[in-house]
């Protein structure tokens, strides 16, 4: 990995040329963006060339009246977010995006955001892609249209494939209406159960909820469990939801981000739900997913492991980001196995390179359909150009 040559093309054609060159040299290529999701996959068995989209940056088409944006893969996510916000658009997923988070990386990693409850997962917003294939050609899939069924949905295949099937070079995304008003509700509970109960009540009663989380980042035992709910939408909609939620759940106070008031700054559009990335002390995160109704069972399995955790749970979606320390191979494997037994899935993120190489980041079981996935990979990359051994099942 450290000996890999970094190549940073400035155009899709240059990227394709670099791939053709690598193919002739029989070099193994790792596609990278800002490298912020490096720890989401296993380290590749071998990398000769790191093909970086760092300089493959810029908006290709943005027609505000159409609600679609197309950008080159290396465009910083934050830049796109700011651009579309000026036209009243919201770019989903809402993610914490330091300047090195790129649009191509978000798509390749299949990253969903804080706003998933309201807008759905990332895959719903990816309308089309241009991908540099292993043979050095460029293949288009989908388009710049909100509705389109021409040809197979290969964009679904590349979204979340971490560049193992091609270099995502250009992305078209669907945009949404920016919320006219936001509000955040915060409440503290001594027990997890009561916090989860309140969170579920909010999702049941609300249509404007972007996120409803339960976290235990604070250590004060009386207020250890926090419910954190974010609403967004038209001004009248949010105002009326806040008042009906206040009536139904008096223990949940709201801050409404009225424009021009001090409260506006207190309600962020997104916040980092994973404790591990924000706090010092070697916390590492595992993303756990399960059926929403299996959440309690999943959390009990985590409790039983006897490991100290900090969690951010999204009960409506069945997603838990658990931060854990300190970690060794035994702990990772034991937690993965305990969770697999209750039917939950894991995805370890943020482990050190050495540990990452030795443990299974995606749990003990191979994904269903792995043989077919391998055939797809073999057909799209017959000579093994793209760095391998990184995803579930060794893809």
């Amino acid at each position, binding site marked *: 990995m450290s000996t890999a040559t970094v190549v940073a093309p400035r155009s899709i054609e240059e990227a394709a040329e670099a791939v053709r060159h690598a193919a002739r040299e029989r070099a193994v290529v790792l596609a990278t963006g800002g490298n912020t999701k490096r720890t989401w996959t296993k380290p590749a068995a071998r990398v000769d060339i790191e093909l970086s989209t760092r300089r493959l940056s810029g908006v290709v088409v943005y027609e505000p009246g159409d609600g679609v944006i197309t950008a080159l893969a290396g465009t910083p996510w934050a830049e796109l977010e700011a651009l579309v916000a000026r036209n009243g658009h919201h770019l989903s997923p809402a993610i914490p995006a330091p300047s090195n988070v790129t649009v191509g990386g978000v798509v390749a990693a299949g990253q969903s955001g804080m706003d998933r409850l309201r807008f759905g997962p990332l*895959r719903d917003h990816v309308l089309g892609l241009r991908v540099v294939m292993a043979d050095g050609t460029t293949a288009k899939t989908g388009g710049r*249209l909100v509705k389109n069924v021409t040809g*197979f949905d290969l964009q679904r295949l590349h979204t979340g494939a971490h560049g193992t099937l091609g270099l995502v070079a250009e992305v078209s995304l669907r945009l949404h209406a920016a919320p006219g008003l936001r509000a955040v509700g915060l409440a503290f509970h001594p027990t997890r159960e009561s916090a989860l109960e309140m969170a579920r009540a909010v999702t049941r009663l609300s249509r404007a909820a972007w996120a409803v989380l339960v976290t235990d980042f604070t250590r004060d035992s009386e207020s250890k469990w926090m419910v954190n709910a974010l609403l967004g939408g038209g001004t009248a*909609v949010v105002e009326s939801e806040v008042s009906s939620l206040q009536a139904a759940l008096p223990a949940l106070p709201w801050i409404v981000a009225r424009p021009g008031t001090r409260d506006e700054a207190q309600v962020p559009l997104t916040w980092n739900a994973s404790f591990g990335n924000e706090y010092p002390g070697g916390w590492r995160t595992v993303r756990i997913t399960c059926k929403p109704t299996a959440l309690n069972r999943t959390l009990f399995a985590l409790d039983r492991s006897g490991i100290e955790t900090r969690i951010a749970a999204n009960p409506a979606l069945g997603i838990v980001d658990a931060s854990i320390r300190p970690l060794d191979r035994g702990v990772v494997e034991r937690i993965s196995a305990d969770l697999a037994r209750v039917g939950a899935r894991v995805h370890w993120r943020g482990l050190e390179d050495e540990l990452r190489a030795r443990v299974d980041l995606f749990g003990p079981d191979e994904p269903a359909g792995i043989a077919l996935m391998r055939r797809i990979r073999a057909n799209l990359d017959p000579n093994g150009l793209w760095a391998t051994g990184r995803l579930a099942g060794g893809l």
Partner: protein
Amino acid sequence: MDARVVEELRAILGHSGVLAERARRVTYESDGLAFARHVPELVILPRDTRETAAAMRILHTHGIPIVPRGAGTGLSGGATPVAGGVVIGTARMRDVLEIDAENRCARVQAGVVNVDLTHAAAEHGLFYAPDPSSQKACTIGGNVGENSGGPHCFRYGSTTRHVLGLVIVLPDGEVLDLSRPAVDAQGYDLVGLFVGSEGLFGIATEITVALLPVPPVTVTMLALFRDLDAACDAVSDLIAARLEPSAIEILDELTIEAVESSVLAAGYPKGVKAVMLVEAEGSEAEVAATVDAIEPLLVARGAFDVRRARDEAERARLWAGRKGAYGAMGRVAPDLYVCDAVVPRTKLRELVRQTIAICHARGLRIANVFHAGDGNLHPNIPYDRRNAEELRRVLEAGDEILKACIAAGGSLTGEHGVGLEKIGAMEWMFTGPDLDAQCRVRDAWDPLRRMNPGKLLPVHACRETRTRDPRGGTR
């Protein structure tokens, strides 16, 4: 069909599961693309995954091509039988297997009719969002095959957004169980890839779909326009203003006339040049805000009357007119060529105009009834298939319309699929490498290319590309 094959299949599916007599096979000679016909050599109707898998293993052994079929309402020839092949129908796979109200999902057999799922979900205060106009007949399996849409997909998205899991029988009879709902796919998103694969990857036998809570308030508005351009511009304005009603549909004059003189008369006033149906759903406040924002935009573009359905009955009638529009066109001519194309929503007026000009230049009439909010045009051309010369002009106009839409940055199809109908047009939109990637993915599912051959992918595009390899390796 080889008598031995028929016997082997009968042993698994029983007599009623194997239709060998010509009289019973004729019903399957086409789907909604009426001019493409071929009486299939054999039709089989398995009852579940196990039977489907066993039958497909036999067909695999004998190297027989397979055409999957739901209700046969498809409009692009996706279910048109192929010579020497077997049609596998899902008509006996009609069970709603499970409604999990708490997790808001349902598991159904592929042959469940779209509207039956909606009815089953309604008991739990839930609904299934994709609502093709054919929803009283089409199957969830067919919807998955085509990635179908419908008026309310403007807000909720097409079928793919609502499919959580699948059980698929692969061409060689292997069962691929992707039914365990996953928040995100592990490895590659095979479920997402399968939706819209038009029967080329395998047969879906069980489908897990997301259900949504029925919105507390629904308001349906009808806006009347003196010209179609104005209605199109009004839609572009709604999109630019980032408003989010749940449906935005337009019907033109010829369609209105046909609907109004049919049993489905919805009370669309005759003599207007276009009506727009707009629906807003949500909480009281949400609907009020949406409606209040929409009305002035419509009026500013020249809507001279904006009405709201007063009650559920009027609402249902307005929608019945829209959803029955194709049927009503039967009064205008014996056949209807239903075009399906997509354009950027900033170019609606321009492209709708072009479709009209293209038809008129060929002495054809045109009825535009479309999912305007998604830019999904349906320029429909009435014709009589017994008139070969007219059919030629119709197909020529269809091609011209598609070319115009592609030139404007649009696409060949928004919901009806490529099938047999648009296979030749794939190369207008995709380059060799684009199609090569699609062929390679298809070959991973179906290396022998026995599933729905001759559909969606131009054959020569695939053959050409198999020889290209920068390292000179052979495959």
